């Protein structure tokens, strides 16, 4: 049985529309105008149990709304969904025993209390034996490296430390499925890596299915085997991550800052110069690591001057989506690629 089955899922919201200014505010009191937002439009997909599935898209694509429908918090406007055999919005409480959730932008740990207090509370809420809760906390603390943080009030933890505790809390009751909504948002590279490593280990050890939403392609590469990309509430691409990488994530962006100004006509062989900073101290390049090895680019960049700062990143998701549209002309031909 698939862990998640979604068929033709839709969700529309009605929000009030009001023009700027006092007059418009008064008018809207008597003649309110509404606009309908289609957050999710006919979404259909399946996820196998134990699968690591990336569910990505730009801001406002409908990722979080879908996750909230799948946890039973939101009622859909149409369509069907089953999560671990439960209809989420009808069997929310029963489903809650089997899933773990992290909404990256919102804390679930008690802010003024040490994380251990929230974990013990969750143990009671999930009806675990006290001894089992303690044992599980110790286990998670080791994997997420939070043993020393558990007794510190959450407000005194860094964002990265807090997120490690948040994800650990979501795994306390040994869920079969973990729904992670932007777990790495706002984290630095090291903190992101920390969470990705711990998650990968837990998923492997306990065969937990992970549905991960993110607008960071790095999360996807590090954690997921398969990816679904949505935009404007619709699936525009679904395939193996390896295929996505080969087809669309095949370039790296490098931003460099030098101690001295770079000469006019600055060029590194095998790269494309995207932008030179106004004062000529910085430059942004793109290259394909399959053609030009990263090492070669780094050597050439450091030979060109005294480096002050360097950042290597994946192309932003918006660019990947634009490339998908460009390649497929419309969403439908890409969907025919199959689920991989």
């Amino acid at each position, binding site marked *: 049985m698939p862990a998640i089955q979604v068929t033709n899922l839709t969700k529309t919201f009605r929000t009030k529309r009001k023009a700027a200014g006092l007059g418009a505010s008064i008018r809207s009191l008597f003649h309110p105008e509404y606009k309908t937002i289609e957050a999710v439009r006919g979404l259909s997909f399946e996820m196998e149990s134990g699968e690591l599935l990336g569910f990505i898209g730009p801001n406002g694509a409908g990722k979080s709304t879908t996750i909230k429908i799948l946890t039973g918090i*939101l009622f859909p406007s149409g369509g069907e969904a089953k999560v671990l055999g439960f209809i989420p919005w009808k069997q929310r409480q029963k489903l809650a025993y089997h899933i773990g959730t992290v909404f990256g932008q919102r804390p679930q740990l008690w802010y003024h209390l040490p994380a251990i207090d*929230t974990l013990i*509370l969750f143990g*009671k*809420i999930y009806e675990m034996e006290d001894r089992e809760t303690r044992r599980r906390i110790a286990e998670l603390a080791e994997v997420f490296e939070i043993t020393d943080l558990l007794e510190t009030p959450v407000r005194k933890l860094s964002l990265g430390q807090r997120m490690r505790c948040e994800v650990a809390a979501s795994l306390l009751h040994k869920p079969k499925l973990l729904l992670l909504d932007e777990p790495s948002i706002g984290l630095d590279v090291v903190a992101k890596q920390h969470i990705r490593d711990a998650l990968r280990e837990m998923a492997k050890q306990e065969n937990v299915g992970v549905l991960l939403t993110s607008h960071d392609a790095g999360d996807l590469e590090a954690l997921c085997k398969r990816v679904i990309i949505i935009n404007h509430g619709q699936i525009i691409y679904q395939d193996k991550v390896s295929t996505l990488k080969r087809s669309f994530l095949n370039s790296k962006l490098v931003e460099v800052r030098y101690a001295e100004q770079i000469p006019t006509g600055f060029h590194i062989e095998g790269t494309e110069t995207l932008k030179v900073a106004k004062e000529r101290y910085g430059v942004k390049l793109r290259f394909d690591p399959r053609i030009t090895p990263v090492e070669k680019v780094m050597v050439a960049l450091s030979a060109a001057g005294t480096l002050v700062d360097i950042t290597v990143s994946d192309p932003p998701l918006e660019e990947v989506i634009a490339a998908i549209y460009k390649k497929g002309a419309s969403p439908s031909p890409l969907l025919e690629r199959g689920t991989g």
Partner: protein
Amino acid sequence: MKKYLAVFKINLLNSLTYPAELVTRSAMILLFMWIFFQLWRITFTAAGSDIINSLSLRDTMWYLLLAETLELGRPRLARVISEQVKDGSIAYLLNKPYNFLLYQLSSGLGESLPRMGMLFVLGGAQVWAMAGPPPDLVNWPIALVALAGAWLLHFCVNALIGLSAFAVEEVAPFEWIYQKLVFILGGMLIPLDFYPVWLQTIAKSLPFAYMMYGPARLFVQPDPVFFTQIILGQLLWLAVLGGLLVLVFSRGMKRLAINGG
């Protein structure tokens, strides 16, 4: 039930995290009780009597203390739920295996008890010094039972206002109206005994009297018949408002739109 007890405990713990803040916030009752004492002392002097409508100045002050303790100590649930809807944190409260309303009840009780305790101790010491000793100890358990009923009624109305945030988000106006109704028709500023009979009749047929006047009056003048009336009235209103709350929650879930997607 264990999980609700745990929710109660963690809220209790959270309320006691900053004891200085708890004491400082509760100390505002000192100002209110001082103003009440000045007003009622002048009123009794002007009336030229030690007793007005069967209440002495001392009774009135202890009545007002209990009413103020309840008003200032009850959880601000309407605001809490509306904030949870606004900032989206309600998502975490709805996806756990518990009854959302019982969670809010246990959580509100854990938050409320230390505050009510502190308000009563501070205000009580002041009223004792200004107006005389507290009512007889036998009155206390009777008042406590009615106080529990009143607290639950406040919970129901507050939660109903809070749940309206599922549809309108901003609930402050409703809360303001409710608070003023409790002030006037609940007998929080003036014991209902001092009202004209027609207004007393109206007030006693509404839930507000059972939320404030009942327990406060029983604290200073317990009477078996009045106690029965108050408890029966509270049970009736709890059935009505509790039923409405469950209905509104199940309907509200279908309308819920969580901010931030």
